[in-house]
């Protein structure tokens, strides 16, 4: 084999190794934080039970093909939990900087892009575990999903949503140095993205200006895709949803990897 080929093989090995190492670190940390897992499930469950009950009694469903409000809300709430945990996962680079571990990563002789990718995959795995648990709990609470295949497919959707927002989180956090920055990101991204996504309402009857915002919100396509796979209902064709999600994920991961590569101490 030529020198060039050897070098390439070595590069692939290093890249894989780097991604795996960073992923492993996230998993080791996740394993230890049982209370965090429970805590991260509690918030969405409150939303599901309380909002679901309230919606049920305060206004009648319009044109919802026989599904209960719980069924309509569950995919939205799963999407919400994926949004929260993947953004938090990306933004945790701020804590890595604050507690110094970032230096240990930056000084290592490995490409930073793959460091960012490993961190993203670690965070996404965490988010998917939470999303899947939530899906199962909702199932136990009586939400009817259309099929097991759909449930499995929804995990693929969770992966795409997670990658998209974790990439965004990494891109935003790579140059943020403080708690305040973290607060800003959380306030000005999470809430508008969540509330405009159609996680809690149907988008068909909205005024035009708001509809535009809803269509600009990447989470909308995630929620619709989740709803499609889980309960067979969507207001945006699934193909479009998937294309939008894949593009979003590719863009933010690419951006996150690039920005992280330029990160300073």
């Amino acid at each position, binding site marked *: 084999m030529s020198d060039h080929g050897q070098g390439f093989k070595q590069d692939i*090995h*290093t890249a894989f*190794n*780097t991604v*795996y*190492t960073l992923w*492993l*670190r996230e998993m*080791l*940390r996740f394993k*230890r*934080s049982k209370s965090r897992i429970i805590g991260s499930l509690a918030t969405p469950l409150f939303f599901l039970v309380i909002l679901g009950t309230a919606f049920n009694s305060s206004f009648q469903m319009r044109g919802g093909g026989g599904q209960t409000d719980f069924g309509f809300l569950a995919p939205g709430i799963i999407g919400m939990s994926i949004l929260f945990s993947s953004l938090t996962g990306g933004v945790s680079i701020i804590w890595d900087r604050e*507690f*110094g*571990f*970032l*230096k*240990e*990563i*930056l*000084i*290592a*002789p*490995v490409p930073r892009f793959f460091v960012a990718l490993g961190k993203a995959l670690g965070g996404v795995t965490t988010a998917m575990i939470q999303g899947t648990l939530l899906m199962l709990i909702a199932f136990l609470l009586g939400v009817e999903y259309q099929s097991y295949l759909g449930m499995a497919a929804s995990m693929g959707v969770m992966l795409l949503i997670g990658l998209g927002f974790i990439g965004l989180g990494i891109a935003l956090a790579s140059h943020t140095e403080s708690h305040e920055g973290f607060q800003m990101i959380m306030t000005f991204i999470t809430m508008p993205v969540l509330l405009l996504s159609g996680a809690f309402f149907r988008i068909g009857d909205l005024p035009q200006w708001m509809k535009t915002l809803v269509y600009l919100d990447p989470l909308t396509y995630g929620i619709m895709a989740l709803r499609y796979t889980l309960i067979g209902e969507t207001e945006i064709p699934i193909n479009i949803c998937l294309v939008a999600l894949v593009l979003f994920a590719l863009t933010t991961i690419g951006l996150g990897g690039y920005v992280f590569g330029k990160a*300073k*101490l």
Partner: protein
Amino acid sequence: MNTPAVETFDITRRFDDLVAVDSISIKVEQGELFGLLGPNGAGKTTLINMLSTMIPPSNGTARIWGVDVTNQPSRVRQNIGVVFQGTTLDDRLTGRENLDLHGRLYGLPKQLRKQRIDEVLELVELDDKAGVLVKTYSGGMMRRLEIARGLMHHPRVLFLDEPTLGLDPQTRNHIWDYIRRLNHEENVTIMLTTHYMEEADQLCERIAIIDHGGIKALDTPENLKDALGGDVIIFGTENETQASLLCKLYDENGSAGHVYYKDDSVSIMIQDGTHQIPHLLKIAIEAGIDILSVDLHRPTLDDVFLSHTGRDIRAEETSDVDRITYKLQGRRR
């Protein structure tokens, strides 16, 4: 002639208007235990950051084991281990996990990684704490773990930025032992920074005194002290005015070597001090200056530092109480 372990060429770093490292050219040979001694803000960390490719120089460059830090940073990184001034451990993981992740990042295969983890843990005597979360470690233990981690991948050069900062004297002595041992047993070239005189004095083979971003002196601790002349005499006077007056007199007189005053005392670096005191005292008395105390000692690194920077390294960072305790401890020894 071997390639130097570290060689800098007019390396400079600016932060806006501030020149943190000012055109430093030094050479550290393979296997050396080299110290950078300087007060807070001298530019030690900035220099280490440039040598470890964490920040680029504004001007000039450096080679680590012959490899340029600006052109080939990733090749430099393969060759170095760095222990930063602040902790860079993941405290939610165990000591062993921290080492394991490091080994993976540096591409150590599984078998070697395991073996190496055990070796370095033994070296810093943390074997029994390896399975415990770093969160529960003491400051000294964290420092030892970081040194162990920096060694995992057999670096050729290990940079230690203030390895014993804030540790109690006993722990500090322990860490010195580890540093000496790894310099000998692992044959690693070590470049460390410190602002503790005893650390530089007892640990380092050669030291560079750094202040305001520049190197003021560079030699073995012995040579640096010898260069001051045989003895240091310190006269206590009534006040600063008297001290400065006396200082000027000695300067003009020319018979004394280097002369400095600080607050109300005058330091004279001179050969054969015991026989010079009567003569010097006479000059003072003739000028009508009262001498309240006389101290004669062999030069210490403090004197070296004072003579090269005109300042007392400890005066700037240690409170008076600390300084008094320090002096008392010094006497007891």
